[in-house]
């Protein structure tokens, strides 16, 4: 059984149909890529997965459990984490605080007013370990706003990782990164993917083709093609479309 699965998802904003009959299933441990041109509905699909947008029809299931109608925080609590294309960090917090607040242990104590966070070294250690895993060891005391762009991108992922998710959704993680940055990101995802199910939106084709187990192509709100990178390279439509620098 697929870990996370979308079935017949429709999304309409006013009279505009953004997603039409999207079916998609991601197996446990898989790294699933979603690609397609701008405005194809990729981010909207993520918004449906994570509860930001309610589909007008269709279902989202996590390990068989229906997530339809749940709010973002409830879906997050079930183990779906996401990063954002336009970075959404707590800019006034340090890198460590950004990660700390995402830890499930911290969330469990979210209504605790009796103890000070600063007196608790357990959180700090756990947060620093996550930071180290994305290559931000030693940067934990820096205010997020003051981090360079590439490190902010890494922090964006660290925050999602800190949630200990079952499914990690990354929205255009390479956006704005140069060739070096993208290369480092490939290495980072290579390191963390072992015990994780990852769905990643990306229009950087090299990036996706080198990482993904399977890829779905979304265009005009529909899944037009799906398969392994190898299969897609052979796909007539993908090869001919202007998507395929690869072809």
């Amino acid at each position, binding site marked *: 059984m697929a870990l996370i699965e979308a079935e017949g998802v429709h999304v309409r904003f006013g009279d505009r149909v953004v997603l039409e009959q999207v079916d998609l299933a991601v197996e446990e441990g898989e790294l699933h890529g979603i690609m397609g041109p701008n405005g194809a509905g990729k981010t909207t699909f993520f918004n449906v997965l*994570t509860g*930001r947008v309610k589909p007008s029809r269709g279902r989202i299931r996590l390990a068989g459990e229906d997530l339809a109608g749940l*709010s*973002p*925080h409830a879906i*997050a*609590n079930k183990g779906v*984490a*996401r990063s*954002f294309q336009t970075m*959404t*960090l*707590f*800019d*006034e*917090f*340090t890198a460590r*605080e950004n990660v*700390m*607040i*995402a830890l*499930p242990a*911290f*969330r469990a*104590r*979210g*209504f*605790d*007013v*009796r*103890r*000070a*966070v*600063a*007196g608790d070294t357990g959180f700090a250690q756990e947060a620093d370990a996550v930071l180290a895993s994305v290559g931000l060891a030693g940067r934990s005391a820096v205010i997020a706003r003051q981090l360079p762009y590439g490190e902010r991108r890494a922090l964006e992922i660290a*925050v999602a990782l800190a*949630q200990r998710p079952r499914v990690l959704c990354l929205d255009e993680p390479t956006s704005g990164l140069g060739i070096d940055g993208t290369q480092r990101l490939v290495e980072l995802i290579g390191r963390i993917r072992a015990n994780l199910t990852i769905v990643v939106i990306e229009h950087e084709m090299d990036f996706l083709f080198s990482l993904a187990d399977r890829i779905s192509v979304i265009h005009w709100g529909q899944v037009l093609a799906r398969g392994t990178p190898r299969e897609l390279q052979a796909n007539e439509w993908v090869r001919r479309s202007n998507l395929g620098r690869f072809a």
Partner: protein
Amino acid sequence: MPHSANAARIVTPTMLVLWLALASAPLWIDAVGLYPYLGVEILIWSIYALAFNLVLGTSGLVSFGHGAYFGVGAYAFGLAQFNLSANLWICLGVATLAAGLAGLFVGLFISHRRGIYYAFMTIAFGQIFWTIAIKAYSLTGGEDGLLNIARLPADFGVVSFDISDNVGLYYFVLAVFVIVVAALWRLVHSPYGRVLAAIRQSETRAAHLGYPVWFYKLTVFALSAAISGLAGALFAMAQRAAFPDVMSVNLSGLVVMMTLVGGGLVSFWGPVIGVVTFLIARDVIGALTFAWMIYFGLLFMAIVLFRPEGIAGMARPLFARWR
């Protein structure tokens, strides 16, 4: 508000210095040309502004109608005294509870809203409470106010303090201030306070991290309202009456202005700085010109435009070690 080196403490060096200065104030306040009642006002408004800043500075929510809860506290204190029991603790408890419940009720409507909508909803509720205070004559005395509210003795069982004179009341209000400051300091540095700070920076991210954002907004609003109500109850004692004007949009706006001018957006102490600055300047400058509120309004506009971090933010480089 950035994290302080003293975040884990209950009582910080700053608090100690401030409390000592305040405790000695009745000895020197006449000598500097001021008077004890001003001290009472400063402390009460400081409690109110600190409570308000839980919403504005800590959680990033703009409430233009906080006077409602201050007023509910003041009326509830008076009504409890007349109808329930002339016991100070019971009356303060009733006032705090009533304001907290009012905040909880309003919070249920507004906590799913953000930004502009949130602000307009708070104005609307503020006006509703204000109108009720004016029109419900039999309960509140209408525009005449609820008069003859007594300064009840602070009875600790073994000893009972008379706080009917201004100096006695000053020390009582100071004791409440001390407790509120220590409690709020701990609150803003607790996990709960940090989640609120996260919500201020990005509601979206906080929600996707699994935090029920609206419930945090609801609880902090109710809590802030409750403490505002406590301040209102103290104010009713100080004035020996409760009037509807504290609930008007002007006086609700005053606490916004004082908090922001003082630097509530960046500093825990901002609201207190703002209240001290405002009330002393009101007495000094207000004696010279009737247009004093206009000048304060213009100062507020200038601060919003040029220095949203307020006085505390501007002074920070000077007192870098002081927080």
